[in-house]
């Protein structure tokens, strides 16, 4: 006799990375290949981004369709962002920012579909992206400015006595970028999805309690629907913020303050 059919999972269970297929091979040390839900949804994200751009280009016709207008608007927005942030002479970074934006935004929006997995709620993906950007930006700065790149750590007009202290502070703030960019994306996505999971668990219990309670629950449910809208907005905003900050880091590496 089972009278407790209701179970409550941890709201953080949705972020677990679990392998679907495992492949162990005793070559090259302990070689382990596995397809996880994270890997699957990363592949889905790449498939959606590429598919959208291949299928929605309206066969390069002169008169656009609604799909190609949407893509051209996205391109125009990101192009304008790169021009504003990095400068009109550095439009060469547009493809990088464009692909970065589309990966993050499709991954975030994909996570809003129920039962899905959000790639950017994995700290490895978020920090991995931001550390790669940080390393790339540092290499860019070193290749453009050579040794003069280190002048970045000494603000102009610093008294000689303060230089060791300021170099330390500037170095820490520079290194913190590698983490902060990724943590911002990761923390926003995790917080939103955890909140929705907790609230939906409560609402499911209330809706299944009795008819009267279910009718009254429609009021908090309206707030919940509004929160889903907020979560979709957060998905877009975080992708935008990620790209704006990447642009400003690239600009810092090119112009050194």
């Amino acid at each position, binding site marked *: 006799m089972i009278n407790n059919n209701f179970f409550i999972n941890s709201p953080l269970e949705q972020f677990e990375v679990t392998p679907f297929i495992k492949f162990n091979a005793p070559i090259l040390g302990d070689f382990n290949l596995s397809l996880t839900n994270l890997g699957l949804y990363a592949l889905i994200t790449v498939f959606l981004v590429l598919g959208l751009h291949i299928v929605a280009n309206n066969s390069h016709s002169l008169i656009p*369709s609604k799909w190609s207008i949407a893509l051209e608007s996205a391109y125009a927005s990101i192009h304008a962002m790169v021009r504003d942030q990095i400068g009109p002479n550095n439009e060469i970074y547009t493809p990088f920012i464009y692909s970065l934006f589309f990966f993050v935004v499709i991954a975030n929006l994909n996570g809003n579909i129920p039962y899905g997995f959000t790639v950017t709620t994995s700290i490895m993906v978020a920090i991995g992206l931001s550390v790669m950007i940080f390393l790339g930006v540092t290499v860019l700065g070193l290749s453009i400015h050579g040794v003069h790149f280190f002048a970045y750590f000494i603000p102009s007009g610093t008294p000689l006595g303060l230089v060791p202290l300021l170099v330390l502070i500037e170095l820490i703030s520079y290194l913190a970028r590698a983490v902060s960019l990724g943590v911002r994306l990761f923390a926003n996505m995790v917080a939103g999805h955890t909140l929705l999971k907790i609230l939906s668990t409560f609402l499911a219990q209330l809706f299944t309690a009795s008819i009267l309670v279910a009718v009254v629950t429609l009021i908090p449910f309206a707030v919940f629907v509004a929160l889903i809208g907020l979560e979709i907005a957060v998905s877009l905003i975080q992708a935008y913020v990620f790209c704006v900050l990447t642009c400003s880091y690239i600009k810092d590496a090119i112009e050194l303050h």
Partner: protein
Amino acid sequence: MFASSVRRSLGGLIPPKIATPGAVSSGGTSARTASVIEFYSKLPKGPKPESERPGGLRGRYFEGKNASGAPFLATILILFGLGYTIDYNMHLKHHKNGHH
């Protein structure tokens, strides 16, 4: 006087604003304008011939006037189904009878 100044200031916004060589460049027919006109006059006119139009799902939902939001909804439904299937087989199946 007021009406004419209004018309002048709004003239750039209200169609029809036909791009004649005189209107878009300062010097009558410049070489640059002529090359632009030549480029566009060589482009094929009218709708695309039936044989060149892509068929299938792409032709039905993405091209030209057929562009619609249906593929968007279909993608959401497919991803929902996929996510539910995975979740069912990884978690829900094991909790079906209330035990952990």
